């Protein structure tokens, strides 16, 4: 194999791919538009949500006990609840700006007020509520919202947390009157590292954990998308356009042609992933700036992307060996769909809860690499299983070599390269797909 010939073919193919507007639009321009758009959309939604004003109608406001106060003028008397009882974003984080919530007067038909959106949520206080509470009984307070109305649901959730906080204050008052400590009902202190974190940190950690599972899957899909289209274009597409035969008649050896195309497809596939990751990281950085906490493990992400390279090689080699079998671009796309169907279960297997990277899983192509990527991205006390790199990379290398060997063999087969001149081989099943 001659390196200058291989390089010549590889760079020509790569330049050809970069001049293909469809591929460039799909793989390079999409992330440039998509991620900023998603970031802006998230911002806009957060801003809109923050600017929402919730209107609460209280039915039987005069039935509320004089102390502790639930409302003062048209405002709720909000107070921080113990973190272990937190059930909503009630001012336990200075950075969390809650949308304003206001009490408005209701008409004689409060249900109609709710229906007509004069109020977003109703708080119904029953007759004799104050007396019942004072007597130590458990009267029922009802919150009502409009079904299917997002704003009403948010208002209901917000009101619920305010009412629960107020309920705690009533309880504390009761304990004080009985000469008991205000935390009398707390039989022990529960230290939960998740709920003891500020709400924003909890949200950031949840996003980070989700990303560490989902990102390897996203990377795999980007790698596949980045390999399929170029591989079809450089194999079936070339056959369709009549340039494949020209190339076969040139002094380039079949293996040089395959390796040249393989290099181009791999670089394109991996390049599209790097490009996507750059824009995704930029979007994550903006989110981190808003939340004030990291949502992505950047060194892990770099490792994760690097581990994507052998996956790009694997997908490129498989796509080339399948793509060359097709006579047209359309047919090539049909042949490559099953590759997605094979890769998806392997990817989803790695995402199953409790699935760990062990020697057996490390040997499964795609699954092993994705489990390793998850390990690299995760922020946990577990050390990264560096010893598993060998089996993961070894398994991928064996698959890449096998796929490349198959691709070269395909490029040497007359019945594959010139399917139109071959005999009626393969019987009915073959004819069905040809």
């Amino acid at each position: 194999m001659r390196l200058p010939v291989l390089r010549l073919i590889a760079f020509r193919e790569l330049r050809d791919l970069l001049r293909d507007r469809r591929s460039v639009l799909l793989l390079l321009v999409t992330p440039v538009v998509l991620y900023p758009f998603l970031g802006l959309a998230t911002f806009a939604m957060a801003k809109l949500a923050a600017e929402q004003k919730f209107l609460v109608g209280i039915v039987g406001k005069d039935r509320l006990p004089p102390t502790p106060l639930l409302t003062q003028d048209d405002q709720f008397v909000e107070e921080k609840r113990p973190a272990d009882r937190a059930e909503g974003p009630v001012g336990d984080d200075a950075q969390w700006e809650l949308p304003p919530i206001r009490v408005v007067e209701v008409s004689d038909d409060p249900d109609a007020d709710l229906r007509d959106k004069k109020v977003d949520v109703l708080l119904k206080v029953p007759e004799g509520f104050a007396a019942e509470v004072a007597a130590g009984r458990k009267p029922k307070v009802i919150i009502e919202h409009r079904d299917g109305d997002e704003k009403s649901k948010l208002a209901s959730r917000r009101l619920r947390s305010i009412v629960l906080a107020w309920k705690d204050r009533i309880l504390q008052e009761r304990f004080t009157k009985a000469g008991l400590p205000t935390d009398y009902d707390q039989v022990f202190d529960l230290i939960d590292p998740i709920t003891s974190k500020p709400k924003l940190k909890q949200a950031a950690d949840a996003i980070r954990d989700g990303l560490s599972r989902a990102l390897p899957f996203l990377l795999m899909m980007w790698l596949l998308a980045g390999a399929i289209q170029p591989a079809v274009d450089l194999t079936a597409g070339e056959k369709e356009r009549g340039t494949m035969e020209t190339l076969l008649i040139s002094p380039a050896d079949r293996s040089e042609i395959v390796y040249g195309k393989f290099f181009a497809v791999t670089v394109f596939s991996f390049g599209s992933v790097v490009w996507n990751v750059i824009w995704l990281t930029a979007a994550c950085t903006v989110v981190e700036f808003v939340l004030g906490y990291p949502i992505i493990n950047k060194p892990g992400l770099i490792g994760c992307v690097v581990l994507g390279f052998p996956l790009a090689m694997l997908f490129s080699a498989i796509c080339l060996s399948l793509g060359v079998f097709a006579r047209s671009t359309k047919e090539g796309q049909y042949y490559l769909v099953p590759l997605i169907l094979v890769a998806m279960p392997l990817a989803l297997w790695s995402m199953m809860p409790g699935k760990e990277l062990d020697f057996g899983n490390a040997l499964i192509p795609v699954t092993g690499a994705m489990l390793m990527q998850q390990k690299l991205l995760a922020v946990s006390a577990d050390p990264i299983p560096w010893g598993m790199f060998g089996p993961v990379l070894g398994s991928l290398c064996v698959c890449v070599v096998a796929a490349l060997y198959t691709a070269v063999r395909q490029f040497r087969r007359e019945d594959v390269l010139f399917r139109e001149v071959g005999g009626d081989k393969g019987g009915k099943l073959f004819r069905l797909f040809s």
Partner: protein
Amino acid sequence: MIEVEGLTKSFPGGEKPAVDDVWFKVQPGEVFGLLGPNGAGKTTTLRMLCTVLTPTAGYATIAGFDVATQGDKVREHVGFLSANTGVYDRMTALEMVEYYGRLYGLSGGHLRDRLDTLFHTLQMDSFRHILGGKLSTGMKQKVSIARALIHDPPVLIFDEPTNGLDVLVQRAVVQSIAALRGQGKTILYSTHIMTEVTKLCDRVAIMAHGRIVACGTLNELRTQYGQDDLEEIFFGLVS
């Protein structure tokens, strides 16, 4: 020189060989016509000579190199052009011909000189920087001719190179091939257009059902079959 002895090609599952025991020789400075209807086995024969298909039996050499065992040497010494060979849509005419020049091992000043000569001779200067996808059919065929000639091969194989071209471009292609004969090239020309055969070919082989059914100069064929009209001879042999 091209030497073909008993060349045969069978495809798996095929009832009969696509090419069956074909013999001929083409000398330098000669245009040898391979005449036959569609499906006669012309393209398969030419593909075997260009090493993209492997013969099932028989023997063939191009410029002294065996097509079965010295494929790389054969490909270095042959220029191939057919109606089906395309040009890259996303490469300019110059880029494409230059790319093939480099594949054939040309570089530097030698490659530049060859490019300038070919673009000038084939009157391609006006579209050298236009992408293949935007070229007309005639322009594309000129690019293909330049691509086949860039390494100045001693043997040229043309497989119905004027198929689908308009009369003006057909004429230009035929004239280019006639000029190449004057340069001492060995030319194998496959076609089913009689006028091209009479204008270009020194000798002709008529193929039908994978076999050569007649071979000789035009005059020899006319004498042998007692017909002046080549088309009548052709129909008589292939029908």
